[in-house]
C-alpha cells in the first residue's frame, strides 16, 4: 500500500470538488406494514464527517443507510443530502457512493471496468471518455489496486475486492459515501489493515461525508468522528467515540460501546452513591436526584486490584487469561463485577476473597432506565 499512499496525496490534490456533502435525517420513519424498522430518526452528518451507525442486528442502522441511498422509501420525514431534499429521488440521481458487505462487484467486468461503471453511467452528465480513464486510474491508485486493473473480481482476494468496491464508489467523486458493514466479510487481520486504509482514504478526501454502518464497536471507535448508537429502530445516543466510551448517557450505550460493569445504586448527595450498603464517590449525572435509583457504569479496565478510593469486597468466580490481561469476574454483594487487570503474576484462586477499587472520575452515574430498550 505504500505506492498507494504516496500517490494518494497527488491524486487528491488534483481532484475536482466532490458532489454536495453532508446528510440530514429529518424525523425519518420507515415501516413495512405494521413493522416499524426506523422510528422518528433525527441525525445530521456534517460535510466531511465520518458518522458510524452502531447497533445490534435489527436496530435499524442499515435501513437508515438504505434510506439515504434511496432503496427504502420513508413513510415519514425527509432525507437531505448537501441540503437538498432527496426523499423522492431514485437512487441513480442521488450522487452517492456505496460499498456493501459482500462487495457486489460485477463478476463479468474487469477491475477497471467495475471502477469505470459509475462514470460511464454518468457519461454525458459528468465524465468524458478521457476523464473516465483518468479517474479510474486515480481511484485504483488511491486504493492500491492499479496493478490489478485487468483482473476479474474472482481473481482477487476478499480484501482486494473490497478495495475495488471502494475505488468504484470513489471514482464518481461522491459527496456522500455509504459503507454498509464493509469489513464484516474480512478476517481480523485484514479488517485491521482495511480500517487503517479507510482512515487514510478519508484523510485524502476530507470533503466526503461518510455514513458507516457497523455492529463492531472497534470499527466505530477507530474510524468515526461521531457514533450514533441505535437500538430497536431508534437513535439511542450520539456523540464522539471518547464521549460515548467515557461518559455514556444510557445503559445501552454503556454496554454496547465497550464492556461495562453496570451496578444498581441509589444516588446520594454531592456525587455519592450507595451500592449494597457501600458508599461510593462517583461522577454525578443529570436526572439522578439523591435517593433515586440509578446505574453505576465502570469500565473493567478502570477497575484495580486492592484498596482505593471506592473499594469493593467480593469473591472470585472466574479468571480468564487474555494474553496481556487477566479478566477477573467477582461476585460483589450478589452482582457480577469484571476487572481487566494487567497480566497477574499470581492469579487469584476461584472462590477466594478479592478487593477491587476504582476512581470516582471513572465511575459514571446513569439515571436508572436511561436509554434502556423498554423505555418507550
Amino acid at each position, binding site marked *: 500500500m505504500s505506492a498507494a499512499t504516496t500517490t494518494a496525496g497527488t491524486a487528491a490534490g488534483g481532484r475536482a470538488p466532490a458532489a454536495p456533502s453532508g446528510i440530514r435525517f429529518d424525523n425519518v420513519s420507515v415501516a413495512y406494514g405494521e413493522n416499524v424498522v426506523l422510528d422518528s430518526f433525527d441525525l445530521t452528518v456534517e460535510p466531511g464527517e465520518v458518522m458510524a451507525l452502531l447497533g445490534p442486528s435489527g436496530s435499524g442502522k442499515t435501513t437508515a443507510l438504505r434510506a439515504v*441511498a*434511496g*432503496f427504502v422509501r420513508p413513510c415519514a420525514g425527509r432525507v437531505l443530502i448537501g441540503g437538498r431534499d432527496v426523499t423522492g429521488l*431514485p*437512487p*441513480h*440521481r*442521488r*450522487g*452517492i*457512493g*456505496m460499498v*456493501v*458487505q*459482500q*462487495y*457486489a*462487484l*460485477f*463478476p*463479468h467486468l*474487469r477491475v477497471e471496468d467495475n471502477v469505470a*461503471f*459509475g462514470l460511464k*453511467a*454518468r457519461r454525458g*452528465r459528468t465524465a468524458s471518455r478521457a476523464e473516465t480513464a483518468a479517474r479510474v486510474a486515480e481511484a485504483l491508485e488511491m486504493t492500491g489496486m492499479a496493478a*490489478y486493473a*485487468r*483482473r*476479474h473480481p*474472482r*481473481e*482477487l*482476494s*476478499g*480484501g*482486494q475486492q473490497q478495495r475495488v*468496491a471502494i475505488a*468504484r*464508489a470513489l471514482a*464518481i467523486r461522491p459527496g456522500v459515501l*455509504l459503507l454498509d458493514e464493509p469489513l464484516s466479510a474480512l478476517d481480523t487481520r*485484514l479488517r485491521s489493515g482495511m480500517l487503517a486504509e479507510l482512515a487514510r482514504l478519508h484523510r485524502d478526501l476530507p470533503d466526503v461525508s461518510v455514513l458507516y454502518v457497523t455492529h463492531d464497536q472497534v470499527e466505530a471507535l477507530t474510524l468515526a468522528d461521531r457514533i450514533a448508537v441505535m437500538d430497536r429502530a431508534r437513535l439511542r445516543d450520539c456523540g464522539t467515540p471518547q464521549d460515548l466510551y467515557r461518559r455514556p448517557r444510557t445503559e445501552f450505550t454503556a454496554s454496547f460501546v465497550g464492556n461495562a460493569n453496570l451496578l444498581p445504586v441509589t444516588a446520594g448527595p454531592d456525587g455519592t452513591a450507595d451500592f449494597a450498603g457501600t458508599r461510593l464517590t462517583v461522577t454525578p449525572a443529570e436526572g439522578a436526584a439523591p435517593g433515586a435509583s440509578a446505574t453505576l457504569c465502570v469500565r473493567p479496565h478502570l477497575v484495580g486490584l486492592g484498596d482505593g478510593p471506592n473499594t469493593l469486597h467480593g469473591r472470585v468466580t472466574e479468571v480468564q487469561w487474555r494474553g496481556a490481561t487477566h479478566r477477573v469476574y467477582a461476585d460483589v454483594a450478589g452482582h457480577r463485577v469484571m476487572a481487566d487487570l494487567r497480566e497477574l503474576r499470581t492469579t487469584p484462586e476461584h472462590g477466594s476473597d478479592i478487593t477491587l477499587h476504582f476512581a470516582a472520575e471513572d465511575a459514571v452515574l446513569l439515571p436508572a432506565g436511561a436509554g434502556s430498550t423498554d423505555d418507550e
Partner: protein
Amino acid sequence: MSRPGTPAPPRPTRERYRGERRKVSSALWALPPLLALGLVFLYPLVLVVRQSFTQDEGGPLSTAPYAQVFAEASFTDAFGNTVLIALGATAGCLLLGFALALVIAFVPFPGSRAIGRFIDVFLAFPSFLITLALLFVYGTAGLANGLWADATGAAGGPFDFLRTPWGVLLAEITYFTPFVMRPLLAAFSQVETGQLEAAASLGARPARIVRKVIWPEALPSLAAGGALVLVLTLNEFGIVLFTGAKDVVTLPVLIYTKAILDGDYTGACVVAVVNIALSLALYALYRAVAARAGGARTPSTGGDGHRARA
C-alpha cells in the same frame, strides 16, 4: 520411491487381482444400460437411416431416395417452414421470456412467486392443450371473434390467423416461452441484489442495469433456453397439427404425411434423417457457441493462475 536403475517392486498379486476384478465388475454394471440404449434407441435409429437409403425393398443401398425427396417442392417448403418457424419461435420465446422473467424476478408485485411456480406447472402441459386454448380464443368461432361479432353485428370476426404460419408461431411462442423462463429465473435468482443496488447508486438507470449487469449474467441461461426451444420447435408436431394449418407443412408433418397417409416409408425416413441431422447440427452449433462463450468468460490470469491472496 525406487532408486534409478532399480526396478520398481512388483505390485502385490492380491492387489492387482482386486483391481482387475473391480474393472470387470464396472464393465458388467455398464452393460445393461448400454444394451437397453442400443435396443430401444440406437437400433430403431439405424433402421430408419438404413431405410432412408433403400430404394427397393431388399435392393442395394442408394442415395437415390435423397435425390428424389430433395427434388420435391413439398420438402423444400417444409424445410423452409420448419427453419423459419423454429427460428421465429425461438427469437420470440427469448424476447418474451427475458422480459417476463425480468419482471417476475426483479419487479416486486403481489403474486410474483406464484407465477414463478406456475411456470413449472406450465412446463408439464401438453403442447396441443395450448393450441386448443388458442383456438378457443382466436379460432373462427372463438371468443375474440364472438366478441367482435356481438359488438359490431358482423357475421364474423377479424381474427383468422391461427391456420397461418403466424398462428403456429404464436402457439409455439406461447407454449415454449416458459422453457426459456425457467433457466432465466434460476439465473436471476443468483444475481446479487447488492450488485443491482450498487449499480443504481453509481448512477445507472434501470435500462442500463438490465443491459450491463443483468444481461451478461443471463446470457448462458438464454443460450441454454434458446437452444432447447430451437431443437423442440424444429421437431414440434402437435401444435402444427392442432392449429389445422394445412398450408403450414413442417418436416415432422411431412414425415407423418409420407409415412401414414402416403405409405412412402423411404421418403419419410429420408425426411426424418434430415430432421435429425438438422437437430444435431444445431445442437453442435450451440455447444460450440456455448464453449466459446464459456472460454471468453473465463478470465485470463495474467500469468498467475491462482486466486490471489491478500
